[in-house]
C-alpha cells in the first residue's frame, strides 16, 4: 500500500503539485492580514495620547488573571465556560495550526521539541482540545442561533441583528476543528498508525474511515488540509473586520487596561492642569479626540453584552447601552478608515453616532467596567464626551442652575456658604450631645470630617452628618469640620465634564484642608471619599466612616447594643462610589453584623455587582428619559430578597431609595436607613 502523500508532495490530477497552493495561501493570507492590521493602526496613531506604560507588574498581573486565566468569564457561567474552552483550545491549537502551515511545504514537519514524549503529550491534548472546541462551538451556536439569550438582541435603533456574524464565526471555528481532525484521521487510516485519543474527533473520523479506499483517504487528506489552510487564513483576515478582532487585540487591551480605580483621566495626558488654558478644544468632539486606548477598546469589544446587561441606565430604558458605545465607535472607525480608499478623518461623534441624552444618561456607576472581560473602559469616555459637550455649551437646562450655583456658592443648591455648618452648630439638642469643632480661627483637630454639600444642607441628610459626628465622638476621634471653608467635593462636577469648575472647587478645598492642619480625613459620603481620595490625590489618608467604625468595633473599643426590632430583615446596598470605585464592601457589613440580633440578607446583586440606585451629585438634577427609576428596581430587588430595611452608606442613595420606596408602593412596608444612622443608634 502506497503511503498517503502530504500536501507538500501530492500532485493534483497527477501533475499539479499542491505545494504551490500551500505556499501561496499563507503568503497571500499573511500579506492581506498585514495590510488590514496596518490600516487598523492608522486611527490609533492619530488618536490622543494615553499613558499606559506605568506600573508594568500590575499590568502583567491583569494579563494573567483577566486574559490568561479568564477570571471574569465565569461571572456568566454558561457563556463563560464555553469561552474558556474555546480560548484554551485556541491557545493549544495555535501550535498545531503553525505546524500545519509548515507541513504544507515539508511533509511530516514536526516543531522542534515536539518529536518525542512531549510531542505525544501535545498531540494527545490538542486532539481533545479540538474536540472540546468543536463541541463548545456547537453548543454556543445553538445557544446563539436557537435560544437567543436576550442580552444579544440588537434594539432597532442600533442596526441589524448580530447573530449571523456570531454563528458564521462559530461555523468557521468548527470547520477548522473538523478539517484538522479529518486531515489527521485520513493519514491514520491510510496506515500512518499511532495512538489516537479515544472519543476525540480524530478518533471518531479514523473509525469511520476504517474501510475507506486508499484513493478516498488520499483525497480526504489533501482536501481537508486545504479546507483548513483556506479557512485558517480567511479567519485570520476576517478577525479584524468585526467583533472577533478581540482574538487579536484582547491581549493588548487587557495589558493596557485601567489599573487605578475611582479616578478620571486628565483632560489630555501629558498636559498639566496649569497648561489646560492653552488647549484649543476640550474633551472628545471628533473620533481622533479619543485616546488610542479608547479606540483600541472599540476594536476589542466582543459584543458580548455583559456591560449593558449590568448597566442600570440600560435597565431602566434610558437611551444608553454601553455595548453600543463600543460597537458604534468601532463601526465609525471602520467607516472613516476604510480598508480601501481614502480615510475620512476628523469626523464629529456627537450627533453622528452618539446623542446628547445618551451621554448624559450614565451615572458613572462602573458596573460595565467591572464586568467587561476585556478591560474596556466607559466612564472616561463618557466624561471626555461630556467635556466636549460642556465646551460647546450643550448642557441640559436642568443641570445649568446647579452648576452655576456650584460656581457661585460652592454647592448645587445655591445655599449660603455661612450656613454650611448649621447642621452642627444651630441644633441645640445635638450640640449638647455632640460638640463639633469648626476648624477656623486657630481651632485644630487631628481628623477632618469632610461633610460635603448634601449632608451639610439637606434637612433629611443632616441626620447622616450628625450620626457620623456621634460615631466619631464614640470612637474617640479628635475631629472637626471646615464649615464655610468647605466646598462641594466636585465628584460629579468632574464627571459631568465641567473641568475648570471642578479644578476651582478642588483648589479651594485643598487650600482649606492644608490650612486646617489635619492628619487624616473621614467622610460618610462616598462621592466625597472618591473625589478626595482618587481625584485630589492628597497626601493624607482619606477614609469612609465604615472603615473607622469597623476597626473600633473589631478592637472592641466601641460596643453596639442589640437591634431594637429583631423582626426586621435588613439588607445592605453597596453604593457605587464606596464599593466598585473604592473596594469597600466588607467594612460596612462587618459593622452592621456586629449589632447583636440584626438579621441581614444579601440581594442577588450585591458587592461588585451592586445595582446603582440612580446616581448622586448633579445626577439628582438631571431629568432623563426613562421608563422606570433605577431606585424603584433596586427597592424591588431588596423586596425580593425578603428585606424590609435597606441600609445604604451614601446620602444620595438615601435620596433615591427613600423616594423609590414611595414610588414602588412599599411605603410603610419598607424603609431606608443610612449606615451611620444605624450604627449611631446602636452605640452603647
Amino acid at each position: 500500500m502506497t503511503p498517503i502523500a502530504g500536501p507538500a508532495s501530492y500532485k493534483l490530477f497527477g501533475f499539479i503539485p499542491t505545494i504551490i497552493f500551500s505556499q501561496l495561501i499563507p503568503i497571500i493570507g499573511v500579506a492581506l492580514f498585514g495590510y488590514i492590521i496596518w490600516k487598523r493602526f492608522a486611527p490609533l496613531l492619530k488618536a490622543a495620547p494615553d499613558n499606559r506604560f506605568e506600573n508594568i507588574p500590575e499590568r502583567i498581573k491583569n494579563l494573567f488573571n483577566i486574559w490568561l486565566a479568564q477570571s471574569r468569564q465565569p461571572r456568566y457561567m454558561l457563556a463563560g465556560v464555553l469561552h474558556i474552552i474555546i480560548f484554551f483550545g485556541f491557545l493549544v491549537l495555535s501550535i498545531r495550526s503553525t505546524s500545519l502551515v509548515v507541513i504544507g511545504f515539508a511533509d511530516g514537519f514536526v516543531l522542534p521539541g515536539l518529536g518525542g514524549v512531549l510531542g505525544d503529550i501535545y498531540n494527545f491534548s490538542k486532539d481533545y482540545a479540538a474536540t472540546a472546541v468543536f463541541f463548545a462551538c456547537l453548543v454556543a451556536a445553538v445557544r446563539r442561533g436557537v435560544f437567543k439569550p436576550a442580552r444579544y438582541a440588537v434594539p432597532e435603533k442600533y442596526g441589524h441583528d448580530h447573530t449571523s456574524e456570531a454563528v458564521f464565526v462559530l461555523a468557521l471555528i468548527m470547520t477548522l476543528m473538523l478539517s484538522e481532525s479529518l486531515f489527521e484521521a485520513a493519514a491514520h487510516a491510510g496506515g500512518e498508525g499511532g495512538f489516537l485519543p479515544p472519543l476525540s474527533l480524530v478518533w471518531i473520523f479514523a473509525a469511520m474511515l476504517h474501510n475507506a479506499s486508499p484513493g478516498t483517504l488520499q483525497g480526504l487528506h489533501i482536501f481537508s488540509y486545504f479546507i483548513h489552510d483556506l479557512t485558517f487564513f480567511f479567519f485570520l483576515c476576517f478577525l479584524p473586520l468585526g467583533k472577533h478582532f478581540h482574538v487579536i487585540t484582547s491581549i493588548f487591551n487587557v495589558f493596557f487596561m485601567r489599573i487605578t480605580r475611582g479616578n478620571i483621566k486628565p483632560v489630555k495626558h501629558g498636559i498639566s492642569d496649569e497648561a489646560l488654558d492653552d488647549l484649543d478644544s476640550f474633551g472628545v468632539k471628533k473620533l481622533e479626540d479619543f485616546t488610542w486606548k479608547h479606540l483600541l477598546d472599540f476594536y476589542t469589544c466582543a459584543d458580548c453584552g455583559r456591560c449593558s446587561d449590568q448597566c442600570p441606565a440600560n435597565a431602566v430604558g434610558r437611551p444608553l447601552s454601553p455595548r453600543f458605545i463600543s460597537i458604534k465607535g468601532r463601526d465609525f472607525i471602520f467607516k472613516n478608515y476604510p480598508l480601501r480608499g481614502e480615510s475620512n478623518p476628523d469626523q464629529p461623534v456627537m450627533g453622528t453616532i452618539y446623542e446628547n441624552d445618551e451621554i448624559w444618561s450614565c451615572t458613572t456607576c462602573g458596573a460595565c467596567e467591572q464586568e467587561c472581560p476585556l478591560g474596556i473602559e466607559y466612564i472616561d469616555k463618557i466624561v471626555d464626551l461630556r467635556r466636549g459637550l460642556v465646551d460647546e455649551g450643550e448642557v441640559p437646562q436642568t443641570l445649568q442652575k446647579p452648576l452655576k450655583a456650584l460656581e457661585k456658592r460652592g454647592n448645587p443648591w445655591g445655599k449660603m456658604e455661612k450656613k454650611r455648618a448649621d447642621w452642627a452648630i444651630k441644633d441645640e439638642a445635638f450640640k449638647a450631645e455632640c460638640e463639633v469643632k469648626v476648624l477656623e480661627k486657630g481651632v485644630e483637630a487631628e481628623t477632618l470630617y469632610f461633610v460635603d454639600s448634601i449632608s451639610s444642607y439637606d434637612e433629611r441628610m443632616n441626620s447622616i452628618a450628625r450620626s457620623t459626628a456621634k460615631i466619631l465622638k464614640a470612637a474617640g476621634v479628635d475631629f472637626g469640620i471646615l464649615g464655610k471653608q468647605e466646598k462641594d467635593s466636585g465628584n460629579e462636577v468632574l464627571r459631568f465634564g465641567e473641568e475648570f469648575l471642578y479644578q476651582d472647587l478642588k483648589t479651594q478645598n485643598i487650600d482649606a484642608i492644608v490650612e486646617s492642619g489635619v492628619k487624616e480625613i473621614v467622610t460618610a459620603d462616598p462621592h466625597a471619599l472618591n473625589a478626595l481620595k482618587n481625584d485630589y490625590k492628597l497626601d493624607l489618608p482619606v477614609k469612609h466612616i465604615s472603615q473607622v467604625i469597623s476597626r473600633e468595633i473589631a478592637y472592641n473599643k466601641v460596643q453596639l447594643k442589640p437591634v431594637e426590632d429583631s423582626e426586621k430583615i435588613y439588607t445592605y446596598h453597596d453604593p457605587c462610589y464606596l464599593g466598585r470605585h473604592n473596594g469597600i464592601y466588607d467594612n460596612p457589613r462587618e459593622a452592621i453584623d456586629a449589632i447583636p440580633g440584626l438579621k441581614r440578607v444579601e440581594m442577588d446583586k450585591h458587592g461588585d455587582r451592586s445595582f446603582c440606585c440612580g446616581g448622586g451629585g448633579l445626577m439628582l438634577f438631571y431629568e432623563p428619559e426613562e421608563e422606570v427609576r433605577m431606585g424603584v428596581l433596586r427597592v424591588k430587588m431588596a423586596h425580593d430578597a425578603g428585606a424590609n430595611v435597606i441600609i445604604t452608606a451614601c446620602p444620595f442613595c438615601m435620596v433615591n431609595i427613600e423616594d423609590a420606596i414611595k414610588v414602588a408602593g412599599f411605603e410603610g412596608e419598607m424603609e431606608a436607613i443610612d449606615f451611620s444612622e444605624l450604627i449611631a443608634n446602636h452605640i452603647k
Partner: protein
Amino acid sequence: MEILVCIKGVPDLEENEIEIKSDGTDIVRDDLVYSINEWDNYAVEEAISITEDKGGSVTVVTVESDEEKADEVLRREMAMGSQQGILVTDAAYGKGIASVLKAVSEKGSYDLILTGAQADGGEAQVGGMLAAMLDRPYASLVNMIEVIDDGKLKIGREIEGGDQEVSEIDLPCVLSIQTGINEPRYVSLRGIRKVSSVEIPEYRASDLGLSADEIGIDASKVKRVDYFVPDLGEGAEMIEGSMEEKVNKVIELLKSKGGMS
C-alpha cells in the same frame, strides 16, 4: 445683522436668600451673589442664534456702577458667544437707564435691540422706554423670532390664556424677550476664562453726552417709597416645620378643603 442686547446683573433667587433691609429702602445686599438676569440670558442666546444663522455680530451692554459685577456678567455673555461688550460705569435709575442705552445704541448701528422682558426691579420699563426714545417699533414679551429678510421679522408673543399672537415688525426695532424663547447654552468656566482678557470699552455717562442729573436718582420720574413683606392677611396661614411636616400639612389642608381626594 448687528444686534445690541441690554443686560443686567441681578441677585439670583436660586443662589441667594433675599431679605428686606430694616429701613425698607432696599434688600440686604451683603453676601449676595449676582448673576445675569434670566430674561437677558435668553435675549443673548436668541441674538447669538440669529447671528449664527444669518451672520452679523452681537454686542452686550450693561449699565452698572459696580465694575466687578458688570465685568462678570459681560464676560459670561461674551463667553456665550457675544462678540463685543460695552460697559457704562454709572449708577442710572429709571428713565436714566433707557437714556444711557439710547446713547450707547446711537454710537453703533444696530438693526435689532433686545432687552430682557424685565429684571430684578420688576418694572419691565426699559425696553419700551428705549424704543420710544429711539422712535423705533417695539414689541414686548417676545417668545419667538423668525428673520423674514433684512428689513422684517416675524415675532410671536404669548398673550393671555397662553394663546400665541404672531406679528411682523420692521427693522430696526426693539424687542423685549420672554423666558422660554430658546434653551440658552451653557457657559463653562473655561469659556469665561477664554474671554477674560478681551478688552471691554468702558464709558461714563459724560462720555456719552449725558449729565449725572439726566440719569441719576433725581432724574427718575418714579421714586421708591418702601419695601415690605405683606402682612399676614385674613384667611392666610403660614405653615411651619420641617419640609416633610410642611408637605404633610399642605396635603392635609388640601384634602380637608376638598382640593384633593
